[in-house]
């Protein structure tokens, strides 16, 4: 009986609390013309105070077999708190993914967004309740290089 009560309480806590996570979209989702050239836009969900969240992004690439990393500037959409844009600052050569990481009130979130020839590949993007690990990034790059996600 006690175990049942504990299980119910834990379940209720999860059900009532919204998970901190990312959602990605094309620039039209931002409804801000200044973002029209962005590689993609994303928003945070499950963060009570988006303005206080800490967001970062890096471009992780494989260029002629060599691993490369480029720090990216994340641009906040002024009219929409919690919405951000990522502009391409990585070279055209090679295969690239964008790794997002965020923190809000002790909760973390991460995502790996493959970048194909026609832009970000939504179907192959992966989301985590923490920053992506190096092995997860490498796996995404490998799949991209093999043409699985282009």
């Amino acid at each position, binding site marked *: 009986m006690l175990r049942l009560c504990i299980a119910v309480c834990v379940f209720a806590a999860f059900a009532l609390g919204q998970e901190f996570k990312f959602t990605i*979209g094309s*620039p*039209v989702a931002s409804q801000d013309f200044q973002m029209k050239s962005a590689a993609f836009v994303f928003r945070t969900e499950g963060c009570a105070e988006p303005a206080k969240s800490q967001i970062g992004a890096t471009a992780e690439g494989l260029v002629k077999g060599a691993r490369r990393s480029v720090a990216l500037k994340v641009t906040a959409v002024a009219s929409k708190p919690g919405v951000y844009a990522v502009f391409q600052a990585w070279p055209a050569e090679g295969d690239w993914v964008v790794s997002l990481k965020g923190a809000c009130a002790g909760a973390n979130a991460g995502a790996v967004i493959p970048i194909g020839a026609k832009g970000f590949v939504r179907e192959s993007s992966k989301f985590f309740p923490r920053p992506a690990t190096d092995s997860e990034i490498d796996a995404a790059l490998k799949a991209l290089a093999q043409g699985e996600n282009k």
Partner: protein
Amino acid sequence: MFTRHVWRQLAAHIDGELSPQKAGQVERHEAQCAECRAEREQIGFGMEMLDHLPPVEPPDAIWTSIESALQEHRRPKRSAAWRLESRPFESNPWRWAFAATFVLAVAGAAYWTLARHAGTRWDVVRIDGAPVVNQKAIRGEGRIGAGEWIETDSGSRATVKVGEIGSVEVEPNTRLRVVTARPGEHRLALARGEIRAKISAPPRLFFVDTASGTAVDLGCEYTLDADKDGSGLLRVTKGWVSFQWKGTGWKDLESLVPAGASCRLHPSVGPGIPYFDDAPESLKQALDAFSFERAGFGFDKAAYGALDVVLAEARVRDTLTLWHLLSRVQNEDRARVYDRIASLTPVPQGVSREQALKLDPETLRRWKDELAWTW
């Protein structure tokens, strides 16, 4: 039958001063003569600009001088001394100076008003062949202003620099007019052909009019292709475009076309239903069965089958198409469209089925804002 141009009759024709027989002759000639049609547009533009001139009241002094001149003309000849005293302009050259200054001021005000309304002139760069700007072929660079046309044949192309906000590439076999060239409004009219626009500016500064409606730039790059009758295709490669049409007898139509999507255009029904270029072919073909035959409303049995295909083939991303369909189908079909969208992606808070089926504007806007994250 006219065998010569009718330039001299155009102004009278515009003012409705020709007899019905003469007017008919002018119209028949214009139908076959591109030069006279172009001249008519220039005259019409000039007359429209004159309507914008502010009325200016002349000072009383000018009437006094006119009356004096008339009286002198009627008076019999007198002695030289008397003549010198009674001809105020000859004895007082300052009156001539005042009159001349006044005339120059009026002319300057008229020129300034015309220039302000006409706007600036944009640079035109020849890319291939010999594009024609305002009936003159350009070799390297030229300029084009409000009311003027640029035309390309099968072997020519040009780039028009649209003020400070971007550029438009004019493809072969295209006829394009600059309607307005002002900092607050950059407007073109595409009569036929194809243009590629690249605009970097706040929304609603760049417009392209066609027979099917107006493309309103919301920060984008796109290709707009139009036939002589206004049929065409809008394809957006970056950003998004709102294509608006003021219907007659029908409610106004607006289609939001984001990057990666296209929208067919038709002169009698305005913008079609947008679709992503990577949508299933069967979905795109089914969309073609809508609207162009029935003005977008009241589908017949053939179109009813097409709706089944669209609903069945739609992916999550095709909620772009389904959202636009909501306001273009009848009630019973609208519920099917709503249910299909709801099955593809969760309906957000604040969007009720009842309000959506009533096409409540705020509900539809809220739903579109959320669906855009899947486009």
